[in-house]
């Protein structure tokens, strides 16, 4: 396999608004998206920045907590903040969001408590939150690509129930599903696109091409841009600079609004980079060069947005305030992580079925009695 690093984020078809140095320099393909960006208020721009900084602090904290033995594992979102913030901020609160397992930025932005992700990675839960209580933000899915079909199925339901495509964006619901460059090889992602096209689902396929699937470069998954896949199903597809939060926002916004209007599914390939390890168990030095890592550090999504805001005249106190808020947020997570208790044994049996199930009940009873027998023994 040839190495994947050839600065594809600078390719001419890639939608970009901010250059790596933060200057406003829209690519020709960005033209149609500029009105969406012009419409953003200062507050919204600052929110984008704040989201990214806060979640990066959280992500760093979680990585440390894992090193301290508090978590089984941590998959860092480091470097992918712009792709995630841009796309998720483009979704409406009534939209439906299907993350894969690295979308910490996405789910916390939708109101998921970061401690719930911590609980997942600590081995206290397989889920962590109730999607219905968090703007239809669904659970992490660890089997790569599986969630793409769930998203499509939900989209089909929206179509069948007339919950989309009525022409009223305040009501029309849409779906966005996240997956990676590696996951894009799975049959389920293909079948999700087949069904999405067939049922004209109001759905955005959001692929974060972070250039690596653990140690495998994206060139192993595809020799041509992954965005081309969508076209094969008749799904309009774009490539966007995923380290540019404004571009990520705008392409996602347009795609979601087109999808909700009844125009059918859309696909986005966001070119970004996993700046950290795959997970805390991983050692990237085994498979990639520091040259590559450095070149991507120069395109850091947060630095870019910071420079942009600075150029626009944001005050130093704003950045200080955000940094402080981020530190406090991360501290809070640390404190609450350290306070996490045990989970009761019974929960292993409690929700296997929605209805009573004799075998499970019997085993639950047996284990309770068995454990009680030790306590008696100890008493």
């Amino acid at each position, binding site marked *: 396999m040839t190495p994947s690093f050839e600065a594809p984020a600078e390719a001419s078809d890639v939608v970009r608004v901010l250059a790596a140095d933060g200057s406003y320099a829209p690519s020709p393909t960005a033209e149609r998206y500029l009105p969406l960006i012009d419409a953003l208020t200062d507050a919204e721009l600052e929110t984008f920045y704040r989201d990214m900084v806060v979640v990066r602090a959280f992500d760093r904290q979680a990585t440390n907590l894992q090193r301290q033995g508090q978590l089984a594992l941590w998959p860092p979102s480091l470097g992918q903040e712009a792709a995630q913030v841009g796309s998720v901020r483009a979704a409406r609160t009534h939209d439906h969001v299907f993350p894969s397992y690295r979308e910490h930025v996405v789910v916390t932005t939708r109101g998921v408590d970061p401690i719930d992700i911590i609980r997942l990675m600590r081995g206290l839960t397989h889920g962590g939150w109730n999607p219905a209580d968090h703007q239809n933000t669904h659970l992490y899915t660890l089997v790569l690509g599986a969630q793409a079909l769930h998203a499509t199925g939900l989209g089909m339901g929206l179509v069948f129930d007339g919950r989309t495509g009525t022409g009223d964006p305040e009501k029309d619901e849409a779906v966005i599903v996240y997956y990676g460059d590696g996951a894009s090889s799975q049959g389920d992602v293909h079948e999700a696109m087949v069904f999405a096209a067939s049922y004209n689902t109001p759905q955005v396929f959001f692929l974060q091409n972070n250039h690596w699937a653990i140690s495998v470069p994206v060139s192993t998954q595809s020799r041509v841009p992954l965005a081309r896949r969508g076209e094969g199903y008749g799904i309009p597809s774009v490539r966007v600079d995923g380290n540019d939060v404004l571009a990520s926002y705008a392409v996602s916004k347009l795609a979601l609004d087109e999808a909700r209007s009844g125009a059918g599914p859309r696909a986005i390939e966001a070119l970004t980079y996993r700046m950290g390890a795959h997970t805390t168990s991983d050692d990237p030095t085994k498979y990639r060069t520091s040259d590559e890592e450095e070149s991507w550090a120069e395109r850091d999504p947060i630095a870019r947005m910071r420079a942009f805001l600075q150029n626009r005249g944001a005050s130093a106190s704003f950045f200080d305030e955000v940094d402080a808020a981020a530190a406090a947020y991360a501290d809070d997570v640390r404190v609450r992580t350290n306070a996490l208790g045990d989970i009761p044994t019974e929960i292993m049996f409690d*929700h296997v079925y929605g209805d009573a199930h004799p075998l499970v009940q019997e085993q639950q009873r047996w284990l309770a009695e068995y454990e009680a027998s030790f306590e008696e023994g100890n008493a």
Partner: protein
Amino acid sequence: MSDIQTLPFAKALNAGLRAAMAADDHVLLMGEDIGPLGGVFRVTEGLHAEFGSQRVLDTPLAESGIVGTAIGLTMAGFRPVIEIQFDGFVFPAFDQITTQLAKLTNRHEGTANFPVVIRIPYGGHIGAVEHHQESPEAYFAHTPGLRVVSPSTPNDAYWMIQDAIASPDPVIFLEPKAKYWMKGEVDVAERALPLHASRVVRRGTDVTLVGHGAMVTTLLQAAALAEGEGTSCEVIDVRSLAPIDYEPILESVRRTGRMIYAQEAPGNVSVGSEVAATVMERAFYALEAPVLRVSGFDVPFPPAKLEGQFLPDADRILEAVDRVLAY
């Protein structure tokens, strides 16, 4: 119209599906060729005409896609009922069934249910080509989070499909395709048994014969023949393979001391293995002989011309009856 109707199994299923769809407009059917064609076994005949393309979906040809999108449909409040065209074609969906459907209730910690029913015509006796005659129940019965049932009469077909659809849990609904054309009385007014109950279908005192699906008919044939030879067999249709309702089985074995489990599936690591092991555990002192299993052999389902040799028939059951009585 009388409450008692005489219907073939497939038509009883059709009536059960129609009743469930009429009662809840979020029940929908998905599968390959279930629309205008009515399914290759005509189980969904007429339903597309009656309920339209958004309630009876001829999907793209991809089983993982069907199960995966059905999961998504539950998230929008639907109760999808899937038809897998033949037993051997369920495997492309196996990941969505085992790692997703079976686990999602648990993953959601009780905040959501995933009421998907997967109908699978299964088993042999129709002389078909490869992949069209298999009995995959062991895979599903081993998987926590799934319920697995198999009606063997039109009346059960009618009621169990409705109960499966009403269940908050995923249900693998195995339809013994050999029985599709078998007629029987259906009481459309009153449900006889709950979804997961096993049923004594013939009383007897010497040997307990237990099985599921099309095998129940074979067990009844064997019991009739055994009677001629002076052996009284009790026959039990388990109806539900996960969970299994053991009470009627144990009650019977406590009386007879001898038991045989019959199934078309290969015997190794099968439902029959589980029932044998469990009955030994729970009725050890009652057993006069080991629980014997009569199963398909541990080979791929053979070319159709050999299905008569592969599938247990009444003679094979009787041979086991002789063996179990010899203890």
